């Protein structure tokens, strides 16, 4: 599965992820800067905030209740905001594009 991360300066990071891995893990393993994942994917910290590209929003789906509550406190919250640790890579997400916010904390 291929994932693309685009930062605020339009720099693109294209990474290959395995099925079943979270988008946060894929970012961290491939040294994509700006995704911290401090709680290790426990949905406890909101330091892996991304803006899902609008074209992918339907496939990525909406945040869960707990995730939405955490997102409520992030910087630069948008309708496309998700926590990358809660998006699990599957076949339908091959090619997924997400945008990185300015800052996680």
């Amino acid at each position: 599965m291929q994932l693309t991360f685009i930062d605020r300066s339009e720099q693109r990071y294209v990474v290959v992820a395995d099925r079943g891995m979270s988008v946060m893990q894929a970012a961290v393993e491939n040294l994509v800067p700006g995704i911290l994942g401090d709680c290790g994917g426990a949905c406890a910290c909101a330091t892996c905030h991304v803006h899902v590209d609008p074209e992918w929003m339907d496939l990525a789906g909406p945040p869960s209740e707990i995730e939405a509550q955490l997102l409520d406190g992030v910087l630069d919250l948008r309708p496309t905001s998700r926590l990358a640790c809660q998006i699990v890579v599957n076949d339908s997400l091959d090619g997924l594009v997400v945008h990185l916010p300015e800052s996680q904390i």
Partner: protein
Amino acid sequence: MSTVTVIVGAGQAGCDLATALRQHGYAGRIVLIGEEDAPPYRRPPLSKTYLSGDTAEEALYIRPRAAYDKQDIELRTGVRVTAIDRAAHTVTLGNDESIRYDKLALTTGGRPRRLPLAGADKPNVHYVRTLADINRLREQFRPGRRLVIIGGGYIGLEAASVGIKKELQVTLVEALPRLLARVTGPELSGYYDGVHRRHGVDIRLGAGVEALEGGERVESVVLQDGTRLPADLVIVGIGLVPNTELAEQAGLEVDNGIVVDLYAQTSDPDIVAAGDCTNHDNGFLGRRVRLESVPNASEQARVAAASICGKRVPHAGVPWFWSDQYDLKLQMVGLSQGHDRVVIRGSMEADSFAAFYLKDGVVIAVDTVNRPQDFMLGKKMVAARLVVDPAALADESVALKSLAA
């Protein structure tokens, strides 16, 4: 010859430090050395879903082994560093191999404080820090067994919660008059006391342990008041001792942790340190502190990596912590010690509330249970050192967001 950074300790801090070096564009050789056999893994689930058997070992790995090769990080596991020679800029490994470094990072973590009693080394006495600890514990963690937990901190309470889930008979002994005494206020202690009792934990407060009795195995835990608690197994969770011996032997400044500044720099300009093993200057708190926490380890590791790369990034994050017990998600931000007022928002009875700790009107810490949104807003309040009207904080008809802005 390219430069070499050696990282001693392959836990969360060591792993994050290695990664952050590459993210900063560090092109030299990176050697990450850990004494455990497994590649760097996440410890928080050890006392939670790994103990319960709901998480597999591989799922704890921060990244698969192959990912280290990909980043050109030499991961050496199952080997100890036995000495540091600062003058020669070398470390010596347990197999007598010696590795030269230009920069050295100490991310040596800590080890569980041992119970200073005879019998504490028997095969049914357990500690909670490593995969090996839990693998050994899990074999004895069976329904119906009588589990005595010594220590009412996070480790003890999380173990109690898993014990109940796995249908053990759980007794928890705490020497102080309340649970979580070191890390939170009496309100939260009282709340968690109620939660655990409701789930069937037999809690003994103000109960010092006098002796461990038995033959080959501990058969009962004897309290100072003479009470004998029969035990099939015992878990000890009475704190962490920072691993500072290497630093001490190398003549670095050590004082309840390896002493580092705001930039994770030790008293030697070529040595940084990060994580549970450090006594560090925290820019937010404005004082020295030693923290046992993953978020702190990760942040400080990034700071240390920046220092190695010649960048000055201060370590100034607001400390935060989390703990999962039963179906309760506890998230804490800030350090509540020294507060002069507590405001509860929400309902303890409904297991959904936030406790705000104020000092001179300033929000210095927030503990939330099942309220991630309040946690996130609380984080902002604490970071901003916000002065908030206590009445408004307690009033759920006032949106917290309007107060955090």
